[in-house]
Every structure is written in C-alpha cells, then in structure tokens.
C-alpha cells in the first residue's frame, strides 16, 4: 500500500464561522494505481490533495505515504517529502516564469538530486516539447505549459503524483491529449496518481473514482 489515509479532518476558519472541509476521510491507494477524485466546488478535493502532499496540516487523522507518517512531519520533513516522494501538478501550471522550458522541466529533478538527462529527454519527446525547450513559459500556450508542468513533475520520479484539476484551463481536445500523455508516462514510471477533476469523462479513465461530498468520500 502506497497511501493510507484514516479519519482525516480539516476545517478552515471563515469570516463568520468555522467551515469543516473534510469530515473523517478514509482512503487507500496501491502503488501504480490511478484514482480520480470528483465532487462539486468546495467539496474538499484540493484540500485532501494539499494534506496528502504535505502542503497543509490536518486537524486530526493520519496519512501514511510510502511508510512515512505525513501528519507527524515538521515543516522541513514535509518539504523533503514534496521534493522526493510527491509530484504536484497544478491547474495554474505554476511554472517558474523566469526560467526557460528546459530549465523548468529539469527543475524538480535538480531539487531532488535525481537529474537523469535520458529520462528528461524521453519525457520531453513524449510530451512533444522538443521544439520549445529554449522558450519561456509566457511564450507557450496553456496546453504546452501544462505539458511542461507534467514533465517537471515526472522528471523527479515521484512515487505519487497529485494533480489538481490539471486540465481545468484547457479545451476538451487538449485536455484529452494532455491526460493521455500523463497517464502513459505515470504508468511508464510506475508512479501512482490522484487527480482531482470536475469531469466525469476524464475521471472514467482512471482505475478508481471516489466522489467527495460535504467533506466525506462516497
């Protein structure tokens, strides 16, 4: 078992009241498995990904990822987890605007100390980015930027990829195209994938689908 989440809760203090976003979530994921998280806006999909990825702290419950108790890690430990075990793909791409495409792709692998030029080269070709390596993110279309973000994540060989609405900013055809490539590459690297999405069509292409509603998995 790569990931085990048990009785996870998280709430945020709003302007008028405290909002419980996750109310006791249990989840398990095997290595190499892909999982779609669906649910309406505000259902807690992104929050669950943030907690699993060590970007935020849970109120209670436990998360075990690759044998590590994520909820017990301090700030430095969570940073190490993000650098070495988890790969994040965001809806807004979050590329480094001042670095070129090639430098962006290699960036997380450099942070993790796992630079493998052959692997990066394979990813670049698989995602059709060879012609854009000397460009800057602002010179790319949204689909191309998301491909760079996927390449950056996979170049570091994470054991778990967390993708938060990775195709939310793309048109349908481009979204299909990007997801095809991401699934193929995730399978090739042996990583697991959890993808938050609104699209039932895209969710159907995962091994499993879980629906989050009012902070609970259904």
């Amino acid at each position, binding site marked *: 078992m790569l990931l085990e989440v048990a009785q996870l809760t998280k709430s945020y203090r709003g302007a008028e009241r405290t909002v419980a976003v996750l109310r006791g979530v249990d989840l398990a994921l095997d290595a190499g498995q892909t999982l779609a998280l669906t649910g309406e806006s505000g259902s807690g999909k992104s929050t669950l990904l943030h907690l699993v990825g060590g970007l935020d702290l849970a109120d209670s419950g436990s998360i075990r990822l690759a044998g590590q108790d994520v909820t017990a890690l301090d700030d430095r430990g969570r*940073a190490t987890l993000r*650098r070495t075990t988890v790969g994040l793909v965001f809806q807004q791409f979050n590329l*480094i605007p001042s670095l070129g495409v090639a430098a962006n792709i290699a960036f997380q692998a*450099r*942070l993790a100390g796992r630079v493998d030029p052959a692997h990066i080269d394979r990813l670049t070709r698989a995602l059709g980015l060879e012609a854009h390596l000397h460009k800057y993110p602002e010179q790319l279309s949204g689909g191309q930027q998301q491909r760079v973000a996927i390449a950056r994540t996979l170049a570091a060989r994470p054991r778990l990829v967390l993708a938060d609405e990775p195709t939310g900013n793309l048109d349908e055809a481009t979204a299909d195209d990007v997801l095809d490539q991401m699934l193929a590459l995730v399978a090739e690297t042996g990583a697991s994938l959890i993808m938050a999405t609104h699209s039932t069509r895209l969710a159907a292409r995962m091994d499993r689908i879980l629906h989050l509603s009012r902070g609970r998995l259904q």
Partner: protein
Amino acid sequence: MTAAALSALLSHWLRNPVQAFTLVAGLALATALWSGVQAVNLEARASYDAAAATLGEGQFDQLVAASGETLPQASFIALRRAGWLVSPVLEGRLRAGEARIRIVGIDPLTAPMVLSAQARGATGDLAPFLSGTIGLATPDTVARLGDTVQLRLIADAGIAPGTLLTDIGAAQRLLGQTERISRLILAPEQPIDRLPLKDVAADLLLKPMQQATDMGRLTDSFHLNLTAFGLLSFTVGIFIVHGAIGLAFEQRRSMVRTLRALGLPLRRLVLLMAVEVLVFALVAGGLGVMLGYGVAAALLPDVAATLEGLYGAQVNGSLQLRPVWWLSGLGMALVGAGLAAGGALWRIARMSLLASAQPRAWAMQARQARPVKATIATMLLTAAAGLVVWGKGLILAFVLLACLLLGAALALPLILDTVLAGAVRRARGVLAGWFWADTRQQLPGLSLALMALLLAMAANVGVSTMVSSFRLTFVAFLDQRLASELYVTARNAQDSAALQDFLVPRAKAVLPLLSIETQISGLPTALYGARIGPTYTQNWRFLASDTDVWSRVAQGEAVILNEQLARRSGLWLGARVQIAPGVDLPVAGVVGDYGNPIGQAIIAESLFRRLHPEVITLRFGLRSDDPDALRSALIEDYGLPASQIINQSDIKALSLRVFERTFTVTGALNVLTLAVAGFAILMSLLTLAALRVPQLAPAWALGLTRRDLGRLEILRAVLLALLTALLALPLGLALAWVLLAIVNVQAFGWRLPMYLFPIDYIRLFLLALMAAGLAALWPAWRLARIPPAALLKVFANER
C-alpha cells in the same frame, strides 16, 4: 538543491534586467551620495587633525603676549631659566605665487613629543631639521611653494595642508621676525618650584587649551549640514531600493510558492534570498563607493575653498583613499539593503504556502495597510508638533526632523489618494473618469518614488531657504558690523599711540578694537571694549534691547551680549552678568552674531580700560568719507605697510565670494538629490510597465490609440509630480523653519530669521516637473510602440 533554487531566484533578475539595474543603481547612488559627502567630511577632519598635530592647537596650554603681538625670544629664555617647560612657536604667512602658505617654526628639542615627532621624520634623526635647511610640507604644498623659499623641501603627507614646518630659526629668517616668537607651548607637566609667571614675564597671558582654536568645533555647522544632506540623499536612495526590492519580491511570490511546493525548505529559501540581497549590496556598495569618490573629488575643491574662506581652515584640496571611508560606504550599502529587504524577507518567511499568488498583491496590500500608515503618519506628525513645543537639545531637534519628514512621506500616498478620489468623483466624460481612476490605481506602485521626490524637493526648499536666509542675514550683519571703511593694525605697542595721533585729525572716527578672552557664566567669551558713537548707535540692530541701551552701556552701567552667550547662559534683558571679579552689570541688549562659535560681551571702552589696563590697542576701525585717500596717507605719509590695512569692501566681497562657493556645493547636492528622485520615478515607471499592460489593454481595445496611452502616461507622471511638489513646499518650509529656529539654536546658539524665495521655489517646481516628465518619456515611448499582439494577449483565454 541549493544550486537549483539559486538559479531560479537569479533567473528573475536576468529576465528583469531593468529591475536589477534599478536595485543596483538605487543602492549605488544612495551609497555614492552618502560616502561622497562623508569623504569630504573625513578629508576636512583629517586636515584639522594634521593642523592640530602640526601646530599643537587645542592640545596644550599656551603663553601669549597680552598685547596680542609677537613676544621677544628673551621671554622664552627667561621662562626656561625660571623652570618653566615651554617651547617656542613662530607662525606667519608667506605668499607663494597665488597661494598663501602658513610658515610654522618650532624648536623640536623643547617641543612636546607629539609636535617634535614630525620634525624627526621617518629616520628619527633631528639633525637635518635642526640645521635649519629643510622644510616639511604636504606634496601639494611643496609643489605650490616651488623655489619660493631657500629650504630643501621634503614632502610629508602628515603635515597640515598649506603649511610649511621648519626649525624656528629658519622660520624667523623666512618671516623677517628675528628673535621673535608667536607663542609658547606649555608642557603638560610643569615643575612645582618654578617661579610665578608674573615675576618672570608679566606681559604674558596663559591661554588654556580649551580656548585655543579648534577648527573641528568651528566648522561643525558646515559639516553637520553636509552630513544631513548626505543622510537625506541616502534615505531617498533607500526609498528607491525599497521600491525595487519590494516589487521584485512581490513579483516572485508565485515563484516562492512554487519553490516551496516543489520541496524547497522555507529556511533555505529565505537564506538564499538574503544572500542574494547581500551580493547586490556588496556589488552596488562597491560601485557606490567608487561613484562617491567621483562626487567627493568634484565637491572637495569648492568645500575646501568655502572652509578656508569662512573659517580660515586649510583643507587638502585633493582626495585620499581611506580604508575607513570604503568600509563605511560598504557598511551603509549593507545597512540600506538590509533595511529595504528586511520587511520583504519577513513577509516571505510568514507567507502561507497556499497563499494565492496575486500579481498585484503589493497594490492590494498597500491598500490594506492604509489605516496603519495613516495612524503612524499621524503619530509621527503629532510627535513632531509635540517636540516643537517641548523638545530640548540637539538630539531631540534631529528626532523632530526625522518625525516630520517620515510622517510627511507616509502621509503623502494617503493625501494623493484622497485628492485623486475627489478628481474621480468630479470627472466629466468617460476618458477623464478612466484617467483619474487609473492614476489612483497606480499610486501604490509609484508611492515610494513620489515619497523620494517629496523628500528631495522638501530638502531642496528647506536647505535653500536656510542657506539663502543665512546669506541675507549675514550680508545685513556684515553691513552692521563692518561699518568702518578701513581697518588698520599697528605694528606694535609703541606704534599704536603714534598711529592714533596720526589718525585722529584725518578720520571721521577712530574706533579702537579692544578685546580680551575671558569666561562669563563659565563660558568662553570675548569681552570687547567699544568706543560708543554713531557707528554703533546708528548701525547695530538688536534682537532684544532696552530703550536707552547705548547710553547705559556708554556710561558703564550695562552690557550687551551676543545671542549665543545670552541663550547658552540663559541671560536675557535685565539679568546681571559678572564681567570681572566684583563687577556685574545688567544686560541691556542682545545682538545677533552669526557664524561665531563663542560668546561675546560688549562694554564701554572706558570700563574695559579700567578692568584690563594691560591690553594695548593694536587694531582700529576707521570711519572716513574718503577711505582711498586715508589709505594712501597711511601708506605714504605714515609708512604703515599696506598689509596692515584692510578695506571693508574687500572683506565683504571676500565673504560674498565664500558664500557663492557654499552655494555651489549646496546647489550641486540639490541637483544630485533631485536627480536621484527623478531616477526613482523612471525606475518605478519602468518596473510597472509590464504590469500596466493588462490595465491598459481594455482602454486600447475601447478606442484609445497607443500614442494616446503614451501621452497620458507622461501627463500622469507630471501631474503626480505637481501634486507632490505642492505638498513638498510647505514641508520644505517647515524643514527650513526647524533648521533655522530649532536646530541652529540648539547646535550653535543663534537663531536665524527666515526669508522666503518664491522665484527659487518656482524654478525648483519646474525642475521637478521636468524630471518627472523626462522620467516618464521612455516608458511612454515604449508604451506607444508596444506590439498590438502584446495587448491582445491580455484577452486570450489561454493566458
């Protein structure tokens, strides 16, 4: 990991070279202005120290002739025989071409070690010096002397500038003062069994060391002004740096979030960003120090001329590279960068990892911080007002200045925002409405540059008002004090009586200039005996006086004090002053005495002569309807050397020339500070340019041409500069008032009247508007030529 993170951080500067240039240039300019001014101050102070070391001024008690003349060498011999450890010094001036060189002769065998060390030179051998065939001087002075003197000249950088140090025998020969001495220096330790001074040399006076000339103290006011200007320029520069660093950090918020999301620990990130600032500070500091050298080298000749003219202080006209100056320049660059970056680093360290990365977060933050800034500004301005009423002492006067300037700078964006909000409400037409609203939206990004402009302009108004007020007051003061057409000095005591006999039938009035140094209320004071007549009664203006002041003083019933003595001792009209043991008189008048560091008390000539019969009059002021004829008679009929006669108009002309040099220095600093503020506006506009595109694209899409947008950018910059200038005027006048009425009084004891100079202010307004217009020109030109594709990109869904 570190290398990857560093490459990401540095890539921002490579992609935004204008921002990097702003940061380096702002910090370099700030450091340059500060270190340039400090270099000038250090050079001057080093010259004073060299002078003190060469001449023994301020370090030892001295014996001088009561008459103010030179004394015979026989007095020295008599005192040595009576057990006194004294050493003779002869001083005089010698003309070498255009320059006047100060000749100082010492006897190294009897001189205190600190003085004789220079005579010993590097070898420690006194023989060459004692032979009377060599003279020591700075390389500059050696060059100026050429072969004017029959001595072998040896260059020594440790000698005071413009001074030739030689054996006393050689000095007597050069100055034609055989067997004469200017003064005797007393060794700190004297034998207990020495004979009393009055038994050995009754005509000599003991001059304690604290009464000796201290050039550092005399010139403090000048250096204080320079330092204040340097600090203000530095502050303006730091505003630029703060703006550049703040904007760069805000623009990198999304990058910071990504770096952390990808696993870079926060502590490592903050450390790397701090190192980045440190590198910038060192590079910019190094550049700034080099630029500062240029500023100092350009200013030093004028400063040296001003100091010599105003105070007679000799300052080396060429600049030396001093390690302390380099280090202080770099230190200031580091402190400035630290101050500017501290807040930004703190915000990064506290920023939530999941905080949304808004491209204009700094603008929103500025809006959110408005109440805090308003509160701080109000507190600072209230504190300034409180200090005006209750503050005492020089430190609090400077705290008052800091509160006033900082409070006003913080209040500026709030005032401008209120004015622009009013303009939005009153705007007629859609274009005007958009223009005012857009201008208002630009305020957070431009506010630091506008604050810099406000401070620069206020400093200009304040310092110009102060210096010009000083000039007007000083010219009027010279007319009052230098009423006599000619000033003559008798050759010696015997000559004094004969000279008076010669002058009485030829001059309208002969006014002896009698004075002695004494202590009043524990303060060093020059006591003057005045022959009261129309010259005094018609010309002198009092700051405060009784109605019959002159008649009471003439009858020996009252005394007049100068302002600094009256303020420092707390003695005002009616207070009784002890002017000699057992003699106390009421104060009947207080007069302004600008530029004089010590107290002055004026009593009637008759009373003075009764109290100090030993003082012989050597100097006289002469009233005459035909001063040229009187001067000719003195030279041709009486045989007085021309060098003993000074024409009043020459002194005034010299004083005004000195002021012109002072104005050159102040003017240069004014222009530099304003240039820095103009640069701040340029850099702010350039760094904002990229952020402006999404805001301007809709206006372009709705029908404005790119050229229209460019024109409006210039109009906006000029308009904001105009509004800032309008606020800078009252602030500058407040600054001038504080400098004249509070800082001056606390620092030097005298208060200057304040005059207004509207023409100067209008000129400054135009300069500021021009600087803002010029600063906006390039960004506007770039905007006018922006490719339509860049504007269209704003509307693309895939952005």
